[in-house]
């Protein structure tokens, strides 16, 4: 693909615990090209969400970035402060989190929440805001005349569509999606991700997709990475990683997915969990 839009180099994130610092992310480096979908998979506690939060500068104490660099489209992300950071977030990079019900304010109409976001980024004309909101909802398959409804009047899948519409509002270069469909059922998940796949071709944004579902990641992503105990242990295309996993852990992770149609003689791996 083209040259990278995001460059992460030797990223280290530590958590301060009563027993000293625990390194949650260890020297992680990767690039994402413009318009590319990169998946990061791993088990709970592998550090995948910590990477996503660090890139979006959403990490909060006790998490601290203790090393490395993050560059998004020429901006030194770790140097951003105050107003600059607030303007950069959402304009250049937006975030979609797991629970849409928690991301939307339950006591505000959807239109008011779009207005808040637009006003924070200097778009203040009422008519302009309503037009843009209508276009965005239309784009994700929600009838614009529902913009004045409250979040509880939508299903979980529709709420997640609304959150995605909001994330695309300012045409960001990168959208970070942290388990965006984990709370949804498989049919809705599939419809939603097909929609995102179509939109990124249309609008050209790149996606960092965080998941624990390797099968889903292999269907949706151009390249996939696997994290284990804070390290990025493998990074390649889905086809290459399934055919020839470089690490034993990756091989076992693939083999732990319960297949729909098991082949005779196929051995499934029962993974031991790592206690927290």
């Amino acid at each position: 693909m083209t040259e990278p839009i995001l460059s992460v180099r030797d990223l280290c994130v530590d958590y301060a615990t009563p027993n000293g610092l625990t390194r949650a992310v260890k020297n992680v480096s990767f690039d994402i090209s413009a318009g590319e979908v990169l998946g990061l998979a791993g088990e709970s506690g592998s550090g995948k969400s910590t990477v996503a939060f660090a890139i979006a500068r959403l990490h909060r104490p006790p998490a601290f970035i203790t090393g490395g660099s993050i560059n998004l489209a020429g901006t030194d992300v770790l140097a951003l402060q105050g107003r600059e950071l607030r303007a950069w977030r959402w304009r250049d990079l937006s975030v979609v989190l797991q629970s849409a019900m928690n991301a939307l304010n339950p006591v505000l109409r959807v239109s008011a929440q779009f207005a808040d976001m637009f006003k924070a980024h200097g778009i203040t004309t009422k008519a302009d805001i309503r037009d843009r909101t209508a276009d965005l909802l239309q784009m994700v398959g929600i009838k614009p005349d529902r913009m004045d409804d409250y979040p509880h009047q939508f299903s979980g899948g529709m709420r997640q569509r609304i959150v995605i519409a909001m994330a695309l509002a300012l045409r960001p270069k990168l959208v970070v999606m942290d388990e965006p469909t984990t709370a949804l059922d498989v049919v809705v998940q599939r419809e939603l991700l097909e929609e995102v796949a179509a939109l990124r071709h249309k609008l050209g944004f790149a996606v960092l997709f965080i998941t624990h579902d390797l099968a889903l990641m292999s269907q949706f992503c151009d390249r996939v990475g696997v994290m284990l105990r804070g390290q990025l242990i493998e990074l390649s295309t889905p086809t290459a990683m399934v055919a020839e996993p470089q690490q034993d852990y990756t091989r076992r992770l693939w083999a732990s997915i319960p297949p729909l149609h098991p082949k005779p003689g196929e051995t499934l791996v029962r993974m031991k969990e790592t206690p927290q």
Partner: protein
Amino acid sequence: MNGLPEFGARPVLEARGLSMHFGAFCALDSADFSLYSGRALALVGESGSGKSTCAKLLTHVLTASAGHIFHAGRDVTKLRGRQALLNYRSAVQMVFQDPFAALNPAHTVEHHLTRPLALHRPDLSTAQRRDAVDELLRAVDLDPAITLRKHPHEMSGGQRQRVNLARALAVNPAVLIADEPTSMLDVSIRLSVLDTFRDLKRERGIAMLYITHDIATARYVAEETAVIFRGRIVERGPTAQVIDSPRHAYTRLLLAAVPEVGSPFGAGNSLAPLAAQVRESCDRPGTLREVTPGHWVRFAA
């Protein structure tokens, strides 16, 4: 294992014409199914399809609007009195979706397992109770020496779900209802947790209702599968048959949506048209017909 119960076997729990209305909304429409000792029925469907309503009716959290539930030869649809409810609940236990919310964060694993024993088996001495707790933990593949003193926050999601299973088993239930027991766990550990459910069901002769939206996992737990859509069972039969030769359009849609390695999204395999078509066409009630022995499919009338 063909998925059909043995000829002449009597169900442990039976639902006949079970329905639930919330005002004008019909959450469950005349569901028929039977649970047998040592076997599992998977109830598969999307959010809002009525599968959790089913669990709430069977556990008497809700009272059915119509229909019957039979247990041990008696109609238990309407139970009267605290003792009757207590007896029924010790026979029908439940494991919930969220392993984090189902355990009290202030108490140890030991407390969580000792309490049901003290309530439902007052005949046990303190020493016997302690042995019973150890035995329960070993049954769900946890080491009592390590686990007993732990609080929920010191365990992973899978370990917590194992504790929830042990808690349900503490009262020796005849029926276990598991509502999405692995959907909040990492994909990589789902199989090993499901293995434990499957093995215990067989070893202890428990009749199990496995509720899930992930039809791929049904094969690893349940001999029989029922697919539910908008409050109606649309297909029911031996799990292998339902997965390998699905007859109802909704079952096909569910199967096609399961994430599978090696079939990237792209032109030609979009599910959106099929999904729209299924949602539109499935509003007519229709009737269930047996297509092969034990395999029932709902056809438009």
